[in-house]
């Protein structure tokens, strides 16, 4: 279990995020939802060890009770943009995290190649990112994130750059991929539909300074979720988010 306790983030003298405490379990998707500017991305960046220098944070993160030093190999971070390096082939991009972790180029490549087919990228190993569609680029980015030996994935609005149809496809696709593994996911989003469709648990944040104002478990299995069954949760979320908007 990954635990964050008492996380407070300041930007200069101003409070951005106030006293966040949350716990992530392996095998479940936790969505952090909130209005723009509430600091949800900063929480993910802090966990990933890439908080911008102008932000200061206090708080602790522990993994099974042991303090976590970010960046940690137990956590894999994926930002909003796919950040595929344009001069590397898709296979080289996918192997990047493994190479940085110390694997040889050959070993890293051998590890990523079997994943190309399940990720819908077969035949594109030697392509460059600018030769792929938006959805394929995002899948390649997920491949790079998921081949790392991490126990938790930290996803910062991973679908925000995609068009509506591709986004819908990618949400289902990601849930299927995650169902094959037992990783924990913390996903930041401001999309009500995405959050209710994907999450096992919803953490709702207030406007700045961001605090967690509601913790909503979604117990219905994803395959059984329908528009009707989710309507109530969405209504609740909507009222929580609107209520908080000044």
């Amino acid at each position, binding site marked *: 279990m990954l635990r964050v306790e008492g996380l407070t983030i300041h930007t200069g003298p101003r409070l951005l995020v106030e006293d966040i405490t949350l716990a992530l379990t392996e095998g479940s998707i936790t969505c952090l939802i909130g209005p723009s500017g509430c600091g949800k991305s900063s929480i993910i960046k802090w966990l*990933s060890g890439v908080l911008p220098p102008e932000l200061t944070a206090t708080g602790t993160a522990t993994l099974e009770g042991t303090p976590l030093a970010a960046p940690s190999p137990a956590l894999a971070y994926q930002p909003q943009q796919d950040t595929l*390096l344009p*001069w590397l082939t898709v296979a080289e991009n996918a192997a990047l995290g493994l190479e*940085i972790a110390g694997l040889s180029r050959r070993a890293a490549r051998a590890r990523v190649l079997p994943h190309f087919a399940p990720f819908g990228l077969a035949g594109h190993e030697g392509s460059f990112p600018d030769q792929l569609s938006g959805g394929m680029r995002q899948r390649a980015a997920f491949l790079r994130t998921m081949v790392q030996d991490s126990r938790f994935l930290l996803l910062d609005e991973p679908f925000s750059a995609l068009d509506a149809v591709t986004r819908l496809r990618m949400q289902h696709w990601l849930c299927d991929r995650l169902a094959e593994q037992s990783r924990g996911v913390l996903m930041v989003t401001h999309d009500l539909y995405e959050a209710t469709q994907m999450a096992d648990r919803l953490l709702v944040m207030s406007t700045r300074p961001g605090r967690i104002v509601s913790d909503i478990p979604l117990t219905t299995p994803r395959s059984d979720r329908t528009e009707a069954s989710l309507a109530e949760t969405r209504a609740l979320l909507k009222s929580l988010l609107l209520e908080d908007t000044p």
Partner: protein
Amino acid sequence: MPITRALPSLCLAAAFLAAWQLYCAWADVSPLILPAPSDVALGLWVNRATLAGHAAATLGVAAFGFSLSVSFAFITSVALHFIPWLRRGLFPLLVASQTVPIVALAPLMVLWFGFGLLPKVLLVILVTFFPVLVSLLAGYARLPQAYRDQLASMGAGRAQVFRRAALPVARPHFFNGLRISATYAIVATILAEYAGARQGLGIYILTAKNNFRADLVLAAVVLSATLTLLLLGLLHLIDRATGRRYRRAVDAAG
């Protein structure tokens, strides 16, 4: 370059040469003042052996100085990139070094270091170092924050981020700087030779001018331009042969 793209330039150049040739014929200008292009071509052909020797000397100095300069510029750029206080301290001085008029410095270099290789190489370095350094530093600065964050979150240290992302991002800028510097390299060598040398196009131009041989001065100028174009062509070939993948735009991340 496809011939169709070069065609407008070639036509303009041909028209210019034709106009020059016709003007010299009709206006009856003294070849001591303005030799016709045909006179220059003739001078180039008749003196080809002597000119080739001087051109080789110039090219040798320019290429050696340029290579040293690029190596120094790269090492300096890495140091300035990683050591902020050094960048703050050294960069203004490097900018100031560019305000020194080379014409004034060239004779002094000969005075201090003699007629050998050293003063010429120093002058080439002084002229070509800065554009390469600035282009490298500008290139490193273009590294998108998102790339940096992505690599850092994977556990990459500063050196890895530099090697895996900053260097590739800087590559096209580096080659732009190389092209600018390469055009200066031959000219700087000629300037240094002009101030004093035993061999080289610079000293050849000086001698030809003193002998009132404007045709030979221009013949040397044609050769110098050719050398510069050769150097640029070589850089272009190296860029094409080694860096196709790096020309892919750095997009996606802002």
